[in-house]
């Protein structure tokens, strides 16, 4: 018998969530007032959960490391959010969104969860619009949609290139409202360092006040981790500088299983690295692939500028290889194809690690239709170009100026150079249908959980999942747990479990300062990132992964012997914050490699060189690997894997083809 039970409700796929909601235990309003919930992280999942739970009457405490909930990295999502509204009348439905997501995730997600996600997607759009989120509209006043990778319908809602920002500000405003009403206590500039467990249940956290350095104890009847992904294990990623795995990792060490850590998403359209000084990578929204065409020169090592290479010497490799989806293939496919071309020597730019994303044709096409709209007969080429640029600017202006800002190149004239970069992590803490981890009372929402995306996430699905978890799933599922907790009085934080947890956190801090080594935190972080990117990045093999595990272990030893943390513990000290985060990344990195080594198939974002078809496409092994790998921490960086078999009753796994 497996140690893990996904608790997927019985019944047909369409009925599972409906039945669950109808039969789940409820907490009556007067009891809700006495129940305290801790929410760690204030992004889409955290802010929406905290606001919704406070609206229900629970007492909520929210923690975030930034100075405001509004700064969580959900804010950086550009492209959009999916929903099965079928406003475009193009044949969309809940089932199709469900199907696309399961298929897009390369059949490594739970059907039950994904169907629920597709079901609540529509409510998210309704909720956000009611909150005053200014989503893009058509001239008739109705909401506008665009298409994204991996789908053939237009179901993506957006707010220019700042969809994540607008949705987060919506959730943030709901949260601020509750703070104003006194139902939520907000703790900005606080970082969670430990989970407190009493009688095997999560009962609170230890958090460090990042201004004073003081460790604080906080009690909660339940704890929600909404702390985002761990992409920064690669050092360079599109994540914010502060994004980290610490909360999830500490929970993992306290008994929460970590699922599918090797499933990381490498986003195909990022601005390439420019030098060793690089501190982060910047994403160019996937929506650019709607109108931009991706190509490399047909000649290897071509050093000409993009706009100087004639049409017949260009290889539009995505359109060539994938006729049905062309430039809109899913992210994993597009990323690997770019890497393949660059590895073969067709890369462009100074580093040769880039491909072109070209808007020349789009500008021409838009120019013509705009001229027609304005009733200009026989427009000059210059006019056409001008009109085209105007349309492109209206659609993607902020992205283009961002590109120009960073690279000092004008993308209206020269094709953009792009290269894949670490963007999202599908893996995370294992949760059941209730979003509860293997620790009772400890929940995990949003990107931090191993979630609904399987081995690859489709564009515009992260925002959907974060908000689904926070607005529409946790308010129901947490009640089922808390209904049994109503008799539990708040436990004083003088309880020995709180003392012990605080001591643990304190001990680690003391240890950092005691090393007095010679190398900065960033030094170790960069080296870890390099190992991860080279050996556990877009393509992995057994030899590389085994080497990586050894190298990470060595690096970790070195870290604990030669780290230098300046300053003091009882003050604002970003070096200390970074040290604590990198210490956890150094453990997670190893587990990621172990997971990648175990999964000797290729699926979604996980590509094992040993497992590919003749023409270089990913080869999944459903007989062997149709499971979720949930890792239990056995202490001292040893792990035991538990399998959650995946059952596909509705969508039968087939080879994913975008040709």
């Amino acid at each position, binding site marked *: 018998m497996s140690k893990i039970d996904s608790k997927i409700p019985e019944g047909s796929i369409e009925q599972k969530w409906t039945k669950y909601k109808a039969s789940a235990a409820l907490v009556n309003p007067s009891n809700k007032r006495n129940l305290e919930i801790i929410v760690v992280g204030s992004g889409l999942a955290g802010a*929406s959960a905290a*606001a919704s739970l406070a*609206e229900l009457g629970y007492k909520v405490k929210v923690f975030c490391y*930034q*100075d*405001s909930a509004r*700064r*969580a*990295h959900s*804010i*950086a999502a550009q492209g959009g959010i999916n929903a099965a509204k079928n*406003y475009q009348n193009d044949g969309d439905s809940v089932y199709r969104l469900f199907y696309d997501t399961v298929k897009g995730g390369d059949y490594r997600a739970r059907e039950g969860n994904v169907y629920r996600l597709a079901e609540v997607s529509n*409510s998210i*759009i*309704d*909720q*956000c*619009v*009611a*909150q*005053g989120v*200014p*989503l893009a*509209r*058509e001239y008739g*006043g*109705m*909401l506008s949609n665009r298409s994204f990778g991996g789908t053939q319908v237009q179901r993506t809602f957006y*707010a*220019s290139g700042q969809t994540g*920002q*607008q949705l987060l500000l919506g959730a*943030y*405003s*709901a949260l*601020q*409202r509750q*703070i104003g009403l006194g139902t939520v206590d*907000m703790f*900005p500039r606080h970082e969670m360092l430990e989970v407190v467990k009493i009688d095997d249940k999560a009962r609170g956290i230890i958090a460090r006040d990042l*201004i004073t350095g003081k460790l604080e104890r906080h009690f909660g009847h339940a704890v929600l981790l909404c702390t985002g992904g761990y992409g920064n294990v690669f050092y360079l990623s*599109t994540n*914010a*500088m502060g994004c980290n795995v610490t909360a999830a990792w500490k929970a993992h060490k306290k008994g929460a299983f970590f699922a599918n850590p090797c499933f990381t998403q490498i986003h195909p359209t990022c601005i390439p690295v*420019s*030098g060793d*000084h690089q501190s982060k990578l*910047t994403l160019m929204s996937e929506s650019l692939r709607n109108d931009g065409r991706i190509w490399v020169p047909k000649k290897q090592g071509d050093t000409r500028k993009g706009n100087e290479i004639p049409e017949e010497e260009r290889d539009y490799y995505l359109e060539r290889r994938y006729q049905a989806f062309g430039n809109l293939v899913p992210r994993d496919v597009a990323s690997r194809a770019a890497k393949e071309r660059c590895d073969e020597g067709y890369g462009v730019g*100074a580093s040769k690690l880039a491909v072109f994303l070209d808007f020349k044709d789009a500008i021409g096409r838009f120019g013509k239709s705009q001229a027609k709209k304005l009733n200009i007969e026989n427009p000059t080429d210059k006019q056409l170009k001008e009109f085209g640029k105007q349309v492109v600017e209206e659609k993607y202006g902020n992205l283009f*100026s*961002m590109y120009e*800002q*960073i690279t000092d190149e004008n993308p209206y004239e020269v094709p953009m150079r792009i290269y894949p970069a670490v963007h999202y992590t599908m893996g995370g803490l294992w949760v059941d249908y209730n979003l509860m981890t293997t620790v009772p009372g400890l929940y995990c929402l949003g990107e931090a959980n191993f979630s609904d995306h399987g081995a690859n996430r489709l564009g515009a699905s992260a925002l959907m999942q974060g908000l689904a978890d926070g*607005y*529409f799933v946790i*308010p129901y599922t947490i009640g089922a747990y808390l209904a049994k907790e109503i008799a539990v009085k708040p436990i004083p934080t003088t309880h020995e479990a709180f003392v012990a947890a605080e001591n643990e956190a304190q001990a680690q801090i003391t240890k950092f300062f005691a090393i007095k080594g010679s190398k900065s935190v960033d030094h170790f972080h960069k080296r870890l990132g390099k190992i991860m990117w080279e050996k556990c990045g877009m393509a992995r093999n057994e030899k590389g992964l085994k080497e990586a595990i050894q190298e990470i272990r060595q690096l970790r030893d070195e870290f604990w012997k030669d780290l*230098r943390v*300046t300053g003091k513990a009882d*003050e*604002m000290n970003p070096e200390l914050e970074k040290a604590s985060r990198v210490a956890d990344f150094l453990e997670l990195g190893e587990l990621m490699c172990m997971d990648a080594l175990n999964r000797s198939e290729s699926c979604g974002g996980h590509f094992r060189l040993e497992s590919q078809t003749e023409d270089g496409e990913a080869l999944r092994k459903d007989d062997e690997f149709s499971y979720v790998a949930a890792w239990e921490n056995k202490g001292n960086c040893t792990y035991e894997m538990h399998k959650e078999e995946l059952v596909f009753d509705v969508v039968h796994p087939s080879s994913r083809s975008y040709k």
Partner: protein
Amino acid sequence: MSGNMNLTLKIWRQNSGKEEGQLITYPVKDISPDMSFLEMFDVLNEQLVSKNENPIVFDHDCREGICGMCSMVINGRAHGPKSAITTCQLHMRSFKDGDTIVVEPWRAQAFPVIKDLTVDRTAFERIQSKGGFVSVNTGTAQDANCIPIPKDDADASFNAAACIGCGACVATCKNASAMLFVAAKVSQFALLPQGRIEAAARVKNMVAQMDAEGFGSCTNTGACEVECPKGISLENIARMNREYLAANCKD
């Protein structure tokens, strides 16, 4: 391209809000023009750590100009010499070899310094919690397309909502006024039918909190609009004034 710029930095160091601070001079060498301004700070901090000195504390997070965390006044301008970008989007190619660069924190009574270049901007949070929302509980919403909203209104609302809450408007304003920030939020909702319902109470409550936080008043110099990394327009301040007058006439 490797580094080829040598610069002199004068950076505000202040141990805590209770202590006095001062500008300290740091030379930096071999800076590449392709580096971002904050990456240049990373280089400097790495140097400080190697000398066992405390690195400079500054707020930053997304490093792509959207989270609103970064906040430096560079050579007397919020977010540095270029318009319409945040500090993290500023690149060293905007400077010349041999330049002296003075870096200070946002300065306002309502934004006390926490440490070095980091300030406390929770005043914005409190303003927001007084009315920067539509009072709608999760689950009560009707279908999103039930209320058609003219595209121009939706776009104008979006333009106001693009504010990232960085506080450059306050830092720039000679009066340390927060009018542009508050006006952007008031406008976002005032322009939408969903937001009209509470428009009067919203503007009054948010303005009252803004005043209580100790921000200065608006003297319409227009500096905030110029330095705003998201180009939030002064029109929003006019709209807020209008809303405020109307709300007060109603009583």
